[in-house]
């Protein structure tokens, strides 16, 4: 019996796939099988073809994205070219990256019910399915919650519940953890492992989470330039550091992730502080508290000094207060009580626009700021707001683009750049304003290992040239490797604050 005729299995035989209007071939000579009940990780650089490969599995390619397709894909014993995506969706569930565009219901319950009601399943059965699916993802008791009011992690779990409610035999997830903190990330992998073990669901997940991939998956497939370059058990991939590095995968290990070790470093903090005292204070928070309109106390009595030329990493769970604190620095949010001083001056009466001369802020998603038709114009926008002369603007744009390595791209349309390059453009557009303090919110989110390293090096270079740098990150390993000081937020307070001896 041919194994591809079994339910819950996948057989991919693709010679070539090229998107419509694309110059490059996205997939070539892609051949792999997946067994029923297997937990497979799909890794590789951004642009290696991971999302494209996953969209083969439920027929989105070639049924929705037609393009130039040569090959066969058998999912759950069904040839994907012979079925509609809607029909396949019942057997092959696909969870995509952005949870926001996968939630249809106004309430959690309505959203989970969306899939099964499209399949015209009996009403009484649907309410059972809702309970089961929410239970699996750990959202029991959330039924009547408004879906837009959920946190990032909860939304992510809701999208998984929504697909589980279709009771698929194969579950495919495209980077479902990129927006989550380490704890939330682990939760997702744990939950998937349970599905594999208890329900014998076949799971294929893509992502950059080396640690979790090593711990939870049965097998890893690595893609590079649209083809499989490695296929085997996770241990053999991650044991070979050079191999992982070669495919642009973050190596695991040197468990600096554990906070115990950091606390030991903390002991030595006193020595380090002696040198810090002589430095100039750039940012000072005095009894700073903040509360959102809905009454959530996001910052509680923060006292903090950040010194000139420091490279500070703010860490902590989602909702711990890192971003809320950062937004106080450039006046996007104003303290409820207490003060924040920049260079010794209370900024309570300064607008964000005024502060932008001194304080740069790079947001997480570059697409929330890019609006110009060329890379050059994009960088120039902030300088026009500063009312600089044309010569001065030209000089600064040139330097900023050179600094981030985009100088030969200045006539390009920003949206033709890759995600990593758009992130750099966002940084350049702030750098050109020559801020003394620079805040970068999660610069490595959703980036592959190469992009992450480049971004961190860029920040290091900026810092060594005299910019006081503050970054918000979930990646403790990177924080330890690059920054001078790590401040951990927890529940609106500074939980720990220590100098990083290694970097000093």
């Amino acid at each position: 019996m041919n194994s591809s005729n079994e339910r819950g299995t996948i057989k991919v035989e693709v010679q070539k796939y090229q998107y419509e209007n694309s110059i490059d071939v996205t997939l070539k000579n892609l051949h792999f099988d997946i067994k029923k009940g297997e937990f497979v990780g799909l890794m590789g650089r951004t642009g290696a073809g991971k999302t494209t490969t996953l969209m083969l599995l439920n027929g989105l390619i070639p049924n929705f994205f037609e393009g130039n397709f040569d090959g066969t894909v058998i999912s759950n014993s069904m040839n994907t070219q012979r079925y509609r995506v809607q029909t396949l969706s019942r057997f092959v569930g696909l969870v995509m990256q952005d949870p926001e565009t996968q939630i249809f219901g106004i309430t959690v319950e309505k959203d989970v019910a969306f899939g099964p009601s499209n399949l015209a399943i009996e009403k009484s059965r649907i309410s059972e399915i809702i309970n089961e699916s929410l239970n699996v993802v750990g959202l029991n008791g959330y039924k009547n919650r408004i879906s837009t009011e959920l946190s990032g992690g909860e939304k992510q779990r809701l999208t998984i519940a929504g697909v589980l409610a279709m009771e698929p035999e194969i579950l495919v997830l495209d980077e479902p953890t990129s927006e989550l903190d380490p704890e939330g990330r682990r939760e997702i992998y744990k939950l998937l492992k349970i599905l594999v073990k208890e329900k014998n669901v076949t799971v294929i997940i893509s992502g950059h989470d080396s640690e979790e991939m090593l711990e939870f998956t049965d097998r890893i497939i690595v893609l590079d330039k649209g083809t499989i370059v490695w296929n085997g058990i996770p241990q053999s991939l991650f044991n070979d550091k050079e191999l992982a590095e070669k495919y642009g995968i973050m190596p695991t290990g040197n468990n600096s992730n554990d906070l115990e070790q950091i606390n030991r470093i903390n002991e030595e903090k006193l020595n380090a502080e002696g040198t810090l005292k002589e430095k100039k204070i750039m940012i000072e928070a005095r009894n700073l508290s903040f509360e959102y309109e809905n009454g959530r106390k996001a910052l509680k009595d923060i006292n903090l000094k950040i010194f000139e030329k420091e490279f500070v990493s703010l860490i902590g769970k989602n909702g711990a207060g890192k971003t809320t604190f950062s937004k106080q620095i450039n006046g996007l949010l104003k303290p409820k009580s207490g003060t924040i001083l920049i260079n010794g001056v209370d900024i309570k009466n300064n607008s964000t626009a005024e502060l932008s001369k001194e304080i740069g802020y790079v947001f997480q998603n570059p697409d929330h700021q890019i609006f110009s038709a060329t890379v050059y114009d994009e960088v120039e926008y902030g300088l026009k707001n500063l009312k600089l002369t044309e010569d001065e603007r030209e000089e600064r744009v040139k330097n900023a683009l050179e600094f981030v390595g985009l100088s030969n791209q200045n006539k390009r349309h920003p949206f033709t750049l890759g995600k990593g390059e758009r992130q750099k453009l966002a940084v350049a557009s702030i750098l050109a304003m020559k801020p003394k303090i620079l805040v970068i919110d999660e610069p490595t989110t959703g980036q592959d290992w190469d992009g992450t390293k480049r971004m961190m090096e860029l920040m290091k270079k900026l810092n060594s040239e005299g910019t006081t740098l503050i970054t918000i990150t979930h990646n403790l390993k990177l924080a330890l490797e690059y920054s001078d000081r790590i401040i951990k937020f927890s529940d609106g307070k500074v939980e720990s604050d220590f100098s990083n001896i290694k970097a000093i």
Partner: protein
Amino acid sequence: MLIEYYPQGSFIHRLDVRTKTLGFFVFTTASFCFENPLINLLILILLWFMLSTMNSPMSKVYGIIKSLLPIFIIMLVITGFTYPASKFTNEENRKILFYLLPDYGLPMTTGGLYYGLTLVLRIFVMVLASSIITFSTSIEDILQFLKKVKMPHQMAFVIATGIRFIPTMQAKSEMIREAQMARGAEFDKGGIVKKIKSYIPVLIPMIVDSLRMSDNLAIAMLNRGFGSMKTTTNLTEIEMKSIDYIISVITLTILAIVLYAKSKNIGAL
């Protein structure tokens, strides 16, 4: 309007959406049948009483009425001056209060003033009656109702999804505004042209993002089996209970009385 649902367990909340729609129709019809402001005031008081039993946010209603105030004043003045005495059957209403211009130019009649008052009250009635429905009826119920009157399933889906995305888009626009403010953008400053121009850096990322989102939404719909079956399961079924029938009969009786009174010229000016 549709998203202003305030779930409270009041009597009106429990009524079927069809009963409420019938009520809306009857009260507004009544208001349009009578020209006498006193009768309209009576209808208004009745609606106000209903609204106050619902535990609803009256400040919202006040807000709407406040924004309409200038229109009310203009209506009163215009109708007061433009309705000549000959329009009215009742002697009382033919009385001319004063002339705006010398030589008997532009008379202000009592009837005109009354009629203006009625027009104002009719708007009040519409605001209150529609608030009663929107405050007490969930979107699902309204969509169910629209399906019952044979609106295609796809259309209902588009409306529901649109409503679901309002808060999402608000949050996006706020994030984009913040990102541009951090680059020195200033909004709401200078003249009208400058103001509009200052919003371009917010608008363009919004549009680009919406396009990307709509693509992803289409994919996500397929992933959830949208359109795989000829029919879908209706999760909430609206249902007329006996109380709904009783209320409906009462409202229809009121309608009959109103129409009878109208035919006897009661409530005319």
